[in-house]
């Protein structure tokens, strides 16, 4: 009996092919929509997770973010694990500058927490550096990087620097009287730049600052949020010490800007996309499933005469149903399987197939259950 089915199918290749293409197209539309929705949702999730939102401390007007001369209270607040920002932030970058006079000229001794803190070091921008001291950025040792042009001269040796801490307010402690003392710094590498600045680690500069004036201060702070969804929480906590930047402000208090505007814009757009697709999905899914259903229905309906004929020859209702479904569902099944696998979305393909099959099944009820003579007469 199976061979008869194949023969009948092969003898109307146009019809079989058209049905196949239509079924594939409908199935594809469904899988594509689901996949598109998934891709958008994944992109949204990805953005939420990987987009880096940074917070930057500035002056009250929000115009400068370096040379802020923040006293240790702010440093402590940022690093406080209970009442401060520390639990919510990561990749904290800080700078402390000392004035520095050396053979290179008058410049700064810049203490940085990481290469990304200063653009002259950051290879992902225009900078770059070299050091033979592996723990340079963590070490409290008095070592420094000199500008690239001076490295040959100082390589392996030391550079004498007269250092002055411009931050001299000690708060509760007493101010030391060493300001302007000379220190010999080990030269352990170079950075891309041509001024008179030397670059040290942040801890080393803090230590030097202590030696000079017995004070702790910081000139720039920025950080990344651990979790982008906590931006508002961080703002709220930060409000204890920092104000919001205001271009017309005359305040001396530092301000904190959490730079999440772009992030929010990107997120809003992605969320809108997802919502739009999700609104579109049920309707188009319904349409393609309904089309699949009708295709199945009509393809069986068109063969009613043949099936009625089979009934008159003594094919029982159950056997007819099985034969018709085998004949009508073989190609759509292959089709749905192929599309489902290619698109990586087997479930919608399966649902499409189920609808197609349901259409076939509904249409086969008539030849299976009605009196065959009635059908043959009706078809003439």
């Amino acid at each position, binding site marked *: *009996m199976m061979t*008869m089915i194949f023969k009948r199918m092969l003898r109307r290749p146009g019809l079989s092919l058209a049905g196949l293409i239509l079924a594939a197209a409908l199935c594809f539309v469904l899988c594509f929509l689901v996949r598109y929705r998934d891709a958008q949702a994944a992109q949204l999730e990805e953005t939420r997770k990987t987009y880096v939102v940074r917070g930057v401390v500035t002056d009250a007007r929000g115009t400068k973010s370096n040379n802020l001369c923040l006293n240790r209270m702010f440093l402590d607040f940022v690093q406080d694990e209970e009442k401060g920002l520390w639990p919510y932030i990561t990749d904290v970058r800080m700078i402390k500058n000392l004035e520095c006079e050396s053979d290179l000229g008058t410049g700064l001794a810049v203490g940085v927490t990481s290469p990304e803190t200063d653009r002259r070091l950051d290879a992902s921008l225009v900078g770059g550096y070299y050091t033979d001291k592996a723990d340079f950025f963590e070490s409290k040792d008095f070592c420094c990087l000199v500008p690239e042009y001076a490295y040959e001269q100082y390589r392996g040796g030391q550079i004498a620097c007269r250092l002055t801490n411009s931050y001299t307010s000690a708060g509760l402690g007493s101010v030391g009287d060493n300001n302007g003392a000379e220190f010999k710094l080990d030269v352990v590498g170079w950075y891309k730049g041509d001024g008179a600045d030397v670059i040290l680690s942040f801890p080393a500069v803090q230590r030097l600052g202590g030696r000079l004036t017995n004070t702790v201060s910081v000139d720039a702070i920025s950080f990344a949020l651990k979790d982008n969804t906590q931006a508002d929480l961080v703002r709220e906590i930060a409000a204890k010490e920092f104000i919001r930047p205001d271009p017309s402000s005359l305040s001396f208090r530092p301000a904190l800007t959490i730079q999440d505007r772009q992030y929010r814009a990107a997120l809003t757009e992605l969320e809108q996309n997802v919502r739009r697709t999700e609104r579109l999905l049920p309707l188009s899914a319904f349409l393609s499933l309904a089309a699949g259903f009708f295709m199945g229905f009509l393809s069986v309906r068109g063969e009613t005469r043949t099936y009625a004929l089979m009934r*008159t020859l*003594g094919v029982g*209702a159950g*056997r007819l149903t099985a034969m018709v479904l085998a004949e009508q569902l073989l190609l759509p099944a292959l089709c749905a399987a192929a599309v489902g696998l290619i698109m990586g979305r087997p479930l919608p393909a399966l649902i499409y197939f189920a609808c197609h099959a349901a259409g076939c099944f509904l249409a086969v009820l008539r030849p299976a259950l009605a009196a065959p003579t009635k059908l*043959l007469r009706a078809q003439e």
Partner: protein
Amino acid sequence: MESVLTVENVSFSYRSKYQTVNAVKQADCSFERGRAYAIVGKSGSGKTTLLSLLAGLELPGGGRILFDGRSTKEMDRDAYRRDNAAVIYQNYNLFPLLTVMENVLYSMKLKGIPNKEARERAEKELAAVGITPDQFKRFPPQLSGGEQQRVAIARALAAGNEIILADEPTGNLDEGNSAQVVDILLRLAHDENRCVIIITHDAEIAARMDRVYTMRDGILEGTD
């Protein structure tokens, strides 16, 4: 001789929303194995309807039809058509997408007759009704009406069912072919002990049958 089909006080109406047609009003008769019957009557008198009832394609509205003592209402009528009664239709009812050979093989495959035997029987019956081997691979629409009719006859005969119900089997045949078909049907009845019932408008053919029933406006009358 034993009666294989018994028609007891049967009536049948076609009902639709708009009208009811009493196609068979009163039929009482019985058909025996080993005999050939003709049903004659004017067009529209209800002959095809009676045949459908005998084939189990419709159920009587009143009365009953018994096959070997069992009412068609209660039995598996699909199995009955497959295994016991073969029908030759007025309009042939061949599968258009199957070749002549495949059409004849179809009913035998349904019965589970092995391929080889089925093919031999098909070839024999097709040859008997005058279909040449070069026509075996043609499709029904590529045959003349008479050829299609003969294929339909061959299909019914090859199945080997004991009851053969034929609705104007010679309606589209020339004299020679029609005589040949009638010979075959008579031989099946007399030599193979089958029950043959044909509807015909041809008085000569009717006269060759063992018994003739006449349908008059839905009422079956027996004439010997």
